[in-house]
């Protein structure tokens, strides 16, 4: 049977396309998607898997075909054909990848915008009040260099999670909250409001504090302090993330969202849980010897269940709440506080001498 080369090429091309599209939709590599943000990210990944599969098959296919087809015969000592290049072909394989990465870049930009990565106003709106405090700190707008700050008091950029009384017992007071230049705004990156929710406050604001080796969640509206994160599905959540000692990162694989927790800064993550369930909250930034066990749960529940939980917590709410939260973790407060009290305590004394008290005063 004699099939013309062009038809073979066409058939191979169709085969590659079909396989790539099939695999792009059926790779089964990702865990369940449990936030509204996850859907867009998964679609983006599927597209990249589709393109990647095609490219993978072309390159590996060429290599394997060449391996068998072009291997030198034992008695053949001659050279191959003298081919130094082919300009149209080279232009083609420059242009096609360029177009592909352009498509991926534009699509990524779109997804990033849809999950709220580009929300320009979020920062000035988004500061959560500290627990049982009514102080709204107003930071400068994130896009301040482009848009003049509209806030009446841009200098009052305060890191609320870092002054939250609920976490006072474990807070390292020697870390001053970052005071970014007013004209720059607080440039800690975050995922802000989705374009649909731009300009609105999130339904719930929660402070998340990372410390070696646990997460602490405080609910400023109700004064709840918890070691696990409870969120109602379908409601937009704003997490104000900060760290108390070293870098941590808040990651929920099922939400596809991750944000570093940076000592002295506040970073934000705004998202909408969409699927009821219990998921792991993982620290994704190396934070010391027990980094691997710095884990807790996020419980995404119905609004009714969430309200019940809030009521239970408020009943139990007392100055002991913090101890309860810590007791939920495998260590006692003394045990898990010891490493950083010891480590940072030394530095704190040194730094205290170098930095006069006004530095701390200005932070408040």
């Amino acid at each position, binding site marked *: 049977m004699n099939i013309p080369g062009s038809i073979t090429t066409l058939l191979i091309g169709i085969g590659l396309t079909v396989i790539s599209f099939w695999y792009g939709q059926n790779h089964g590599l990702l865990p369940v998607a449990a936030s509204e943000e996850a859907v867009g990210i998964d679609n983006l990944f599927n597209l990249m898997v589709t393109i*990647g599969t095609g490219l993978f098959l072309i390159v590996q296919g060429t290599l394997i075909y060449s391996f068998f087809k072009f291997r030198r015969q034992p008695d053949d000592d001659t050279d191959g054909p003298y081919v130094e290049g082919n300009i149209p072909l080279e232009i083609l394989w420059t242009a096609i990848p360029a177009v592909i990465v352009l498509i991926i870049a534009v699509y990524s930009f779109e997804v990033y915008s849809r999950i709220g990565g580009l929300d320009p106003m979020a920062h000035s709106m988004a500061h959560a009040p500290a627990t049982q405090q009514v102080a709204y700190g107003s930071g400068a707008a994130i896009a301040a260099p482009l848009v003049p700050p509209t806030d009446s008091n841009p200098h009052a950029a305060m890191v609320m999670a870092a002054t939250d009384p609920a976490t006072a017992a474990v807070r390292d007071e020697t870390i001053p909250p970052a005071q970014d230049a007013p004209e720059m705004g607080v440039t800690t990156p975050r995922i802000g409001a989705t374009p649909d929710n731009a300009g609105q406050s999130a339904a719930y604001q929660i402070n998340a504090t990372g410390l070696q080796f646990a997460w602490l969640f405080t609910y400023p509206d109700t004064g709840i302090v918890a070691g696990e994160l409870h969120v109602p599905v379908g409601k937009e959540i704003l997490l104000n993330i900060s760290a108390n000692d070293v870098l941590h990162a808040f990651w929920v694989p099922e939400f596809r969202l991750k944000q570093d927790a940076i000592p002295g800064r506040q970073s934000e993550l705004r998202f909408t849980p969409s699927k009821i369930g219990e998921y792991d909250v993982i620290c994704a930034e190396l934070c*010391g010897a027990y980094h691997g066990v710095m884990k807790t749960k996020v419980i995404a529940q119905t609004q009714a269940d969430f309200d019940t939980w809030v009521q239970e917590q408020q009943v139990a709410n007392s100055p002991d709440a913090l101890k309860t939260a810590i007791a939920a973790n495998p260590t006692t407060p003394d045990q898990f506080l010891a490493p950083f009290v010891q480590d940072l305590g030394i530095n704190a004394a040194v730094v205290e001498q170098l930095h006069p008290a006004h530095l701390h005063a200005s932070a408040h």
Partner: protein
Amino acid sequence: MTQTVPEQAIVTPAHGGSTESKREWRKYISFSTDHKVIGIQYLVTSFIFYLIGGFLATLVRTELATPASDLVSPDLYNGLFTVHATVMIFLWIVPAATGAFGNYLIPLLIGARDMAFPKLNAVAFWMIPPGGILLMSSFFFGAPGSGWTSYPPLSLVDNQVGEAIWILSVLILGTSSILGGVNFIVTILKMRAPGMGLNQMPLFCWAMLAASCLILVSTPVLAGALILLSFDLIVGTSFFNPTGGGDPIVYQHMFWFYSHPAVYIMILPVFGLISEILPVHSRKPIFGYKAIAYSSFAISFLGLIVWAHHMFTSGTPPWLRMFFMINTMIIAVPTGIKVFSWLATIWGGKLRLNSAMLFAMGFISMFVIGGISGVMVASVPFDIHVHDTYFIVAHLHYVLFGGSVFGLYAGIYHWFPKMSGRMINEKLGKAHFILTLIGFNICFLPMHKLGLEGMNRRIADYDPKFAVLNVVSTIGAYILAVSTFPFIFNVLYSIFKGEKAPSNPWGGLTFEWQTTSPPPHENFAVDPVLLIAPYEYGTEEAKEIIKAGPFLATAAAEG
């Protein structure tokens, strides 16, 4: 030239006697200024550190064979992966790719008698062993446990003595790299044989030129970051320490300003090796010489403006994330040009499937996987999910092991006859290749899925639901560890007992194949003049040159 005597002792059948072979051996532990000696010193030293780094990796994988943290203490575990990464980057791939092959090959490829600054070259090499031993000594004081990235504040509070040792060691190794970079640039630009314009240079020289520019531009920034970090660590300043109002994110910017280009410092020279090896064993000219040559510089330039893609979840404002995302993706274009050009070089050739060629083809195959996942992680929304997970671990090993290490092995097999004057055993070489390919993929392919499903990196203790794939990965790591044994045995056996190598065993056209194996002191007896572009396989002139034997060296014996 008294030193030519021991050189020839190798070439001529064993008559030399014990004193000469003793002197021969000693020159490799001396302050030699011969670029070939220095190149081999780099290669052997860095390979020893590769074995040490591999041993650390095997310990890491053994710890990870079970979900619990049960083999070593969590503190030591962090030290293991920190030193593993530091060794593999600063003591294996960088010195092997630039120091070893750069020093050994560049003067030979451009027809020079030595590097531009031979003493500086020796100084650069002799900084490597103390730097490496210093790093290893950190295990006695509590190894640095904050990752090879050493992000403050953790690096300021965790195992401080080990951290200080780590900083000093990396500063020494970085300085060595800068000295090497200066030498390569001057040598390539100033010492080429008559008739060899930039566009007639072998492609390895282009790659080394691009990599050396990166070394010179970016390594000083790493040095700056590390010096400031050491001030924070040792004298209690607050450049990066939030306790005193410092900004830990600034360190990340400075660190990645070097450490992303470092990836290209590690891969560009290997691209160069592949571009040398494929045409010789395919018996075809390189496809698209200029595209490959210039794309090295495109990669080098773009490599300087993508660093913050390591920081998509930490410290860059949104618009800047988009800027770094797009730059990063654009790198796929020049890289793609190289890959397609290599495939076109192979296509229709007469492939000599020996160990060097197998590793070179394996390089393309594995590197492309790392390249595909590289474009994926460049995409900000997706990177927010996989950043700091095993997906990244998989990606970086496909680039640095599947890429750089496969390429380095290809280079060792390809130039072994030239370096040692002996042929290497092909059967053992092929066994090595097959074991490496299988072990590597079993070890690192499952990590993609682990990362996507939620396994974060740098942990000694992981969720039991990831146990199965981790066991698979650990088995792969053991196969990978075993794969080095046939290689080591092969090299040691072949150096002493291997078949004598002819001057041009592969029928290569670059200058090194026109001199003896190994080349005499100062490489050539006559000053080489470029007669033919380096990849003109398939022409009559090429056949004549290959037939002529080591004419660049034999003229010496006659004259």
